[in-house]
């Protein structure tokens, strides 16, 4: 399995890199499978991987409408953390964190997981109290969390403006040292290769155009590459959830699709080795291994399937970035792009059996799905294989909205703007 060993790299370099083998096959779809996973993003691929690895279900197809990694798994700002307030979220995301910590080893594929820490800044004493409360809740659950003073923050990132003359002076912050970043494409490729090696068919350029039904029951899908039948169909299509579920006749869900923009600057020398978030507004920033400053903020705030956004958010994010790091004013932005986010009405995800027989639904990731990739696949695979949720995703049902047992991290009530 040492395909990317130093020896292999050297041999192929001397050989003009002609002999590399593709990391996964390009099979044609079979007429039927035990399980079809719709969506070849991070969550779909990890679902297929854990179906094969944890449950021995290898007669699986992953259907991707474009090429692998063309959706949100290649568009996010790569942050991985588990610093949530509510127990259901803490347990789920901490399980994800533990999977992340062993992921490169598990997949035998370097996902470049870097535990460089995630720091949330506070700008008022009340905000700092709130962060302290969250830190205590995290420690209570056994998750690492440290309150930091402005002086300690300045030592960690010398370019940050902690002066009392700032428009929103920094009064402290909450750090999760085990949090960090991962190479998002490598996560997709690693899971794809791992699933493929266990017998999963990854079928690219295969868009689902409808569902096959026997009575109420879903028994397969129609696609641009023909009809494919399956005992169980799992849907993990993030921002396209509304579109795909409408094909199954479900027009209304507690989900809206919104556009989230992200930005990267030209490469600069090492400047910031932590992920940091601005607390007055919303801006999160890290520096990629290539040197680009990667940042993002809030969603644009209106329904969109366009994968591109508008100027107001760009101005917001840039002004907040400069409030933290004035020195970045002379750095040029290189690219801006957008991804479709499945914004749920309480800011928490849905991983559930149903809503139709034979169908399984994984959605509502708002704009925090990347960090959940391992646990989402792990729990969704369990739900599909056993026909019941894992204890970690048992709270993330669709009927919680009917019953009023929301997982509302911000305590803000029903709105599709939370995360």
């Amino acid at each position, binding site marked *: 399995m040492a395909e990317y060993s130093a020896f292999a790299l050297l041999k192929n370099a001397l050989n003009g890199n002609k002999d590399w083998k593709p990391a996964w096959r390009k099979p044609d779809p079979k007429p039927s499978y035990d399980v079809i996973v719709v969506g070849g993003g991070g969550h779909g691929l990890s679902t297929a991987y854990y179906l094969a690895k944890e449950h021995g279900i290898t007669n699986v197809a992953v259907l991707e409408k474009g090429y692998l990694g063309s959706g949100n798994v290649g568009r996010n700002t790569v942050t991985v953390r588990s610093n949530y307030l509510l127990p259901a979220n803490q347990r789920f995301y901490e399980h994800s964190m533990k999977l992340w910590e062993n992921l490169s080893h598990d997949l035998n594929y370097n996902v470049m997981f870097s535990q460089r820490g995630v720091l949330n800044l506070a700008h008022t004493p009340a905000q700092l109290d709130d962060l302290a409360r969250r830190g205590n809740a995290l420690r209570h659950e056994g998750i690492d969390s440290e309150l930091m003073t402005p002086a300690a923050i300045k030592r960690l990132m010398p370019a940050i403006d902690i002066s009392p003359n700032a428009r929103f002076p920094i009064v402290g912050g909450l750090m999760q040292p085990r949090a960090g970043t991962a190479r998002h494409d490598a996560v997709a490729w690693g899971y794809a290769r791992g699933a493929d090696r266990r017998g999963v068919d990854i079928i690219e350029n295969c868009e689902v155009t409808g569902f096959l039904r026997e009575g109420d029951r879903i028994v397969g899908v129609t696609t641009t590459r023909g009809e494919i039948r399956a005992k169980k169909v799992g849907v993990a299509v993030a921002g396209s959830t509304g579109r795909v579920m*409408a094909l199954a006749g479900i027009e209304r869900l*507690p989900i809206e*699709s919104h556009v989230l923009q992200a930005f990267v600057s030209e490469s600069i020398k090492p400047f910031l080795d932590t992920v940091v978030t601005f607390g007055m507004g919303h801006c999160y920033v890290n520096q990629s291994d290539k040197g680009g400053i990667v940042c993002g903020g809030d969603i644009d705030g209106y*329904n*969109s399937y*366009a994968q591109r956004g508008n*100027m*107001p958010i760009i101005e917001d994010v840039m002004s907040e970035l400069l409030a933290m790091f004035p020195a970045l004013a002379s750095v040029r932005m290189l690219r801006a792009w957008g991804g479709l986010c499945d914004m749920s*009405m309480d800011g928490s995800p849905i991983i559930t059996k149903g809503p139709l027989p034979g169908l399984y639904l994984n959605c509502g990731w708002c704009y925090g799905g990347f960090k959940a990739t391992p646990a989402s696949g792990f729990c969704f695979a369990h739900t599909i294989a056993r026909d019941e949720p894992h204890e970690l995703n048992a709270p993330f049902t669709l009927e919680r909205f009917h019953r009023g047992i929301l997982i509302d991290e911000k305590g803000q009530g*029903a709105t599709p703007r939370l995360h």
Partner: protein
Amino acid sequence: MLINCPYCGPRDVSEFTYQGDGNRERPDPASQDIEAWNAYVYDRLNPAGDHNEIWQHSGGCRMHMRVVRNTLTHLISSVAPVRPHAAARHGGKP
């Protein structure tokens, strides 16, 4: 994105507040129909294409308006006051 406010004319999107899916109907306040309330509070139409939605010109004349906007292209095909008579009464285009 520009929204053509019936009262103020074309203005930047940053002046407006998005109020979401305009197809929902609020049940009678006395209603005890849990499903109807659930649908109103949580469920949304989420089409890829033309979407009926409510916006408010909160940074301007504060009018609430019905907007038909394509969620694939962001093109706006119609803007009308939620209550048509309001604009006419205040001197705007009806």
